[in-house]
């Protein structure tokens, strides 16, 4: 950035946006990649395996229990007797004893399982519930025409006394699904097969016990003897292995656990692939949103920087035209607060400069005007003053005291208005000048003109702009007293008021018909007053006051208040 200080605004914005977006993305991706592969998956795997083991053990113990009960029933004397006799009448006579034996053995488990007894011919059929028709051997003369546990048992060696366990038969009995069947054969004393004892374990005996784990998408009970399978999570799904394709995909996400003492085993499809799939999806979504975000940020950067540079350009253009001297320029509101502040400040600055320039121009014009007037009126001052001196000399030599004094006073008055070495005068000098003026006027008007000047000695050395008092007195005589009958009084009063100096000139003349405002003075007949006002304004700005008080016919008072300036 430092190497390229003129980088565009949009470039910078894009870079900032990218930093803001990429940092959390990189953090997220690296975090999940590391944790997912190492930790979560392994932990999930271990958890899944142990959950499946537990399920397998649980099923094994249920099977073990009912296997034992099947053995107990198959050893029952009365059952063997009935099956060997294979006579329905004998059966009916012994039925109570048989039931008693069965219920004792099942010990109240009949809501979990159903126990059935059937003779080889199917003539004797007893069950704790309704006798399942699939076991009615009379109906299945051909033992292959039905796929049930008796058929399965027949395929195995005839002399094996051990129980046969199968999930092949997915019957619904009394609204309940049979999950696992256990079969035990009964034999006569001669070793002839007499019948079968079958215990059907209902699915709701096992399924609620299976870990309702969120770890697996499916848990399947498999019979490796019959290549049959049933889902323990969705029990309505069953059939051969083709029903569960995941069993054969060889993925490392399939867990298996053998159920001890049987041909059964549990297989479970882990959620891991789903999670992984989810993860991939999320990553994809994130990547896409990142790309969209980048695109949006680039567009936004351009829009933003364009909107800024557009406004900036307008400001710069305004400043340029201001630089060229167009003071009418005014920056409009832009709708961005910072820019508006800039605009407002700029507008104020323009106004200030304009006022300043106006004032300077005015002052220049005034001084040019004054200079022109001075040049026009300047009949060689040397000649003027030397002539006055000669008149004075003549008057004195001829004993003309009035002429002599008047000449001297006139000389002082003229000198002070011509003398431009200093714009200031002490009050002593100003008062002397006023007296010179009044004494000359008194020569004309005699005792009709009376005046008083009040100023304490300590104020005499205070400096004020020169020619302030005299024009006020002149104004009083010219406009206030000139038309008035009777005595003319002029009072000049100067006093201190805090850090201000008050100068007031009062007369008892005709007064102002209406008090003029200062702007109106310029073009009125009171140019003397305006001249004083304007010079004070140029010198003090707003730090002074200038007021006129008057009652028509009763006189007027012009008061000025200015800051004190001590003579150094």
């Amino acid at each position, binding site marked *: 950035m430092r190497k390229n200080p003129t980088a565009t605004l949009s470039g910078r914005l894009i870079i900032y946006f990218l930093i803001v977006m990429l940092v959390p993305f990189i953090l997220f991706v690296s975090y999940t990649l590391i944790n997912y592969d190492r930790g979560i998956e392994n932990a999930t795997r271990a958890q899944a395996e142990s959950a499946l083991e537990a399920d397998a053990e649980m099923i094994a113990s249920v099977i073990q229990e009912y296997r034992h009960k099947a053995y107990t029933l198959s050893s029952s004397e009365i059952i063997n007797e009935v099956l060997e006799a294979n006579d329905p009448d004998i059966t009916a006579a012994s039925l109570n004893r048989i039931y008693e034996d069965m219920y004792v053995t099942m010990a109240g488990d009949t809501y979990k399982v159903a126990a059935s007894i059937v003779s080889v011919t199917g003539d004797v059929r007893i069950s704790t519930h309704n006798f399942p028709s699939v076991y009615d051997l009379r109906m299945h003369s051909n033992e292959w025409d039905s796929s049930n546990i008796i058929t399965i048992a027949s395929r195995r060696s005839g002399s094996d006394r051990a129980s046969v366990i199968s999930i092949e038969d997915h019957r619904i009995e009394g609204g309940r699904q049979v999950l696992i069947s256990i079969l035990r054969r009964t034999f006569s004393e001669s070793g002839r097969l007499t019948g079968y004892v079958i215990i059907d374990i209902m699915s709701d005996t096992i399924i609620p016990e299976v870990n309702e784990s969120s770890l697996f998408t499916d848990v399947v009970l498999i019979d490796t003897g019959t290549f049959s399978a049933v889902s323990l999570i969705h029990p309505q799904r069953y059939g051969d292995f083709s029903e569960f394709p995941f069993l054969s995909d060889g993925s490392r996400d399939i867990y298996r656990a053998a159920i001890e003492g049987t041909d059964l085993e549990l297989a479970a499809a882990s959620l891991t692939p789903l999670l992984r799939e989810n993860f991939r999806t999320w990553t994809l979504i994130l990547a896409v949103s990142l790309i969209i975000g980048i695109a949006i940020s680039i567009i936004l950067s351009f829009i933003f920087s364009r909107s800024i540079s557009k406004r900036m350009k307008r400001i710069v253009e305004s400043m340029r035209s201001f630089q060229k001297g167009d003071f009418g320029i005014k920056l409009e509101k832009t709708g961005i607060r910072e820019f508006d502040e800039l605009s407002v400040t700029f507008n104020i600055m323009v106004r200030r400069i304009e006022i300043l320039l106006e004032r300077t121009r005015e002052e220049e014009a005034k001084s040019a005007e004054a200079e022109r007037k001075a040049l026009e009126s300047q009949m060689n*001052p*040397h000649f003027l*003053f*030397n002539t*006055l*001196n*000669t*008149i*004075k*000399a*003549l008057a*004195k*030599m001829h004993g003309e005291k009035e002429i*002599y004094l008047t*000449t*001297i006073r*006139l*000389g*002082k008055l003229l*000198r002070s208005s011509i*003398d431009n*070495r200093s714009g200031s005068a002490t009050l002593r000098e100003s008062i002397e000048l006023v007296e010179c003026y009044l004494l000359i006027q008194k020569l004309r008007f005699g005792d009709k003109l009376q005046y008083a000047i009040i100023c304490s000695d300590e104020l005499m050395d205070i400096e004020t702009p020169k020619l302030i008092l005299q024009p006020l007195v002149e104004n009083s005589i010219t406009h206030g007293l000139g038309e008035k009958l009777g005595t003319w009084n002029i009072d000049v009063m100067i006093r201190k008021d805090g850090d201000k100096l008050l100068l007031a000139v009062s007369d008892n003349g005709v007064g102002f018909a209406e008090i003029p405002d200062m702007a109106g003075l310029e073009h009125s007949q009171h140019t003397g007053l305006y001249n004083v006002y304007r010079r004070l304004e140029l010198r003090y700005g707003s730090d002074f006051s200038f007021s006129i008080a008057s009652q028509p016919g009763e006189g007027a008072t012009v008061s000025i208040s200015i800051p004190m300036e001590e003579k150094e």
Partner: protein
Amino acid sequence: MRKLKVVLVEDEEIVLRELEETIDWEGLGLEVVGTAKDGIEGENMIKALSPDIVVTDIKLPGKNGLQMIEDAAVTNGIILSGYTDFEFTKRAIRLGVFDYLEKPVDDDELEASLKTLAIRIIEDEKDMDSISDGCRIVLKEDVQSHWIKVAIEYIGKNYMNQIALSDIARETRLSESHLSSLFKAETGINFLQYLNAVRINAAIRLLSSSSMNVSEIARSTGFPNPGYFTKIFRRFMGKTPTEYRNELPGKEVVD
């Protein structure tokens, strides 16, 4: 008390007459010994008459009033000016002009100024009399102030050059006004009188021990011109340098 001599220089007849006739010279203890109407006449008259006070216009034919004051080495001048020019004022101050009055001249102001000047001149003369007995000048040298010692030493080393109070003020880092009043308090006379006294003493030595003429002596003792030298010499010794040399005991009149 002797009357102080005044020369008036003014090119306007009426004004000159008015000054001469209507100012109360007598009452001020003054006497107009001569009037001139141009700068050159004025300069010659001043050199010839050695007046105590010169009152002059600035604009004069031949030579302007300020130039005349400078060339004639006038010490107490009053300027009357038709139109004040800042350059003139500055130069007048440098030349040590006593007052600067603007035309039309208020004669009351002129009289007040003349009165003040006259009193000062009389006092200066009293001071001079106090250190001179007509044969030689005795200057007070055992002063208390360290700074005045420095000043006296400086004068002793540099009197043959053009020196002013401002040079010593710079040397001692005192203000001119403070130095001036301190000098008067310590030595009884003012700086210019002291400087002139040192110069006159040096001139007396040269008058009696060398054959240098008056112009040479004036130059080598730091006087701006022989006329001024003669005037100051007479002020202190009551006679001109030539008279003084001629009256030296055992000295034969050569010329």
